[in-house]
């Protein structure tokens, strides 16, 4: 490195420097373990805070093309039912596929993606509502299409209905008004690491993690409703983007300490301004791996044991990296049954990894195996007081 600070351990290995981002603890919580094949409830779930996925996810890309507001005769099914709705004209064009040419009229925005609407002078009006159902006003349409859409001209008077979160759009429903749609930059999203450990020092059993959107929960194979501590770690660059109003400095939120920073020309998405990024912060706990192994369950239906490594006896809490316990392979002999790798926790200094039947998935989602190679399983400490 050509600038900044670099700190080594006793073996000459890098502990942190001003170039690379140390994985730092940023959030902790306690959840109750979920029994196998039981739907988790609120006490079982931990919602990973939005800010742990990085601030770049909130940036917006350049606005797309303008959409003219439709002021023609509204037709059945396209009638305004809410003052937050706005009719925008369809923008059809021709495509050729397999030798045939036909018109298409893309929806004004995509499902499950964050968009907002601006006026022609680039003033932000409101976010588009992407959470309500279609009947509640997502991009409905196109309406008023002539001749079942055989030609581009059939869409001349067609329109979609869009809906904003909270702004009354009636003042924008006038001829000559244009709006444009601006999409969030999704090219960078942080990947939180989830570390877990049983609360009880006498816990003995297997546990693994599952994910539901941005909620996580621990499957406790003992079936005894044990509680688990969760520590969420993120790269320092993401840690540094968290606003000061959140309690993410887990060592006590002291207003002082030592930070390592990159130079001021760093950016992670094209839309982000160049700035310094954090690479280390003494005001929280770094991940300190003790032992680790790359592992993959071989055959569903056949038990396997993996030795991660030996741990010395210690009163300092150890934590298991849970991210890759998500992966499974189907057991073809049992309908919707999957096998997963699970931590087998005997004590704070005796932890190994087992390949066992994980759960059944009646949704049928598990027809696709997700574990296709080795992944990292690790035991770490975060600090004597963590």
């Amino acid at each position, binding site marked *: 490195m050509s600038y900044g600070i670099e700190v080594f351990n006793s073996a000459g290995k*890098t502990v942190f420097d001003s170039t690379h981002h140390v994985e730092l603890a940023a959030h902790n919580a306690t959840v109750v373990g979920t029994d196998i094949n039981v739907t988790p409830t609120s006490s079982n779930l931990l919602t990973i805070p939005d800010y742990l996925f990085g601030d770049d996810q909130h940036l917006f890309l350049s606005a797309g093309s303008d959409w003219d507001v439709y002021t023609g005769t509204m037709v059945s099914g396209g009638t305004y039912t809410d003052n937050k709705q706005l009719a925008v004209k369809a923008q059809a064009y021709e495509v050729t596929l397999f030798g045939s040419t036909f018109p298409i009229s893309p929806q004004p925005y995509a499902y499950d993606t964050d968009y907002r609407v601006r006026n022609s002078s680039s003033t932000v009006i409101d976010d588009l509502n992407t959470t309500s159902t279609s009947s509640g006003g997502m991009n409905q349409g196109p309406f008023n299409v002539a001749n079942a859409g055989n030609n581009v001209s059939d869409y001349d008077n067609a329109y979609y209905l869009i809906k904003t979160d909270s702004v009354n759009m009636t003042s924008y429903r006038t001829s000559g008004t244009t709006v444009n749609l601006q999409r969030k930059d999704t090219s960078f999203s942080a990947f939180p690491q989830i570390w877990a450990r049983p609360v009880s020092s006498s816990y003995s059993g297997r546990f693994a993690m599952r994910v539901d959107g941005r909620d996580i929960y621990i499957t406790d194979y003992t079936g005894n409703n044990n509680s688990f501590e969760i520590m969420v770690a993120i790269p320092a660059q993401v840690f540094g983007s968290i606003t000061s109003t959140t309690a993410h400095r887990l*060592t006590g939120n002291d207003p002082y300490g030592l930070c390592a920073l990159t130079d001021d020309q760093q950016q992670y998405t094209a839309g982000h301004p160049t700035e310094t990024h954090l690479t280390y912060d003494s005001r929280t706990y770094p991940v300190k791996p003790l032992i680790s192994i790359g592992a993959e369950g071989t055959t569903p239906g056949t038990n396997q044991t993996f030795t991660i490594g030996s741990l010395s006896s210690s009163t300092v809490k150890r934590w298991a990296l849970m991210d890759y316990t998500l*992966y499974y392979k189907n057991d073809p002999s049992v309908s919707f049954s999957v096998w997963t790798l699970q931590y087998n926790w005997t004590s704070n200094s005796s932890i190994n990894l087992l390949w066992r039947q994980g759960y059944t998935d009646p949704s049928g989602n598990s027809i696709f195996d997700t574990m296709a190679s080795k992944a990292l399983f690790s035991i770490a400490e975060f600090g004597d007081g963590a």
Partner: protein
Amino acid sequence: MAYGYQTFDTNGDEIIDTSTAVETLIKYDSIAVTLYRDGTFGPTTFDYDLPGVSSQQNLEDDYIIQVTNAGSWNVFVAGSYGQGFPVTYQSPGVIRFTGGGPCFTFFGQTTACTAFNTDYYTYDIYVKGQTL
């Protein structure tokens, strides 16, 4: 400690002491890899310099190569073609991403590859216990 860097939390409990063999997990890089299905049109492998990697076992035990554009938060895999390129140890300090493979029509029938048949993945790379 006779030398090094040591910190404590507000309760006086030690967080880190660099006079020991303490290791941290470090996000080393974020990269994008595009490989061709057919080597006639471009590279089907990509070699990447990764500090300290010394064997396939070492790669598996001390590194995370995480796919970040395969759909959702919970996607990892080195070695799973379809969810990312297989990643293997190549030589001291070098790993290899391997692409290539057959091309298919829209209906799943094999067909001749063209220069448009490429695969693209982005990765976050984490290392532990290395000299950077």
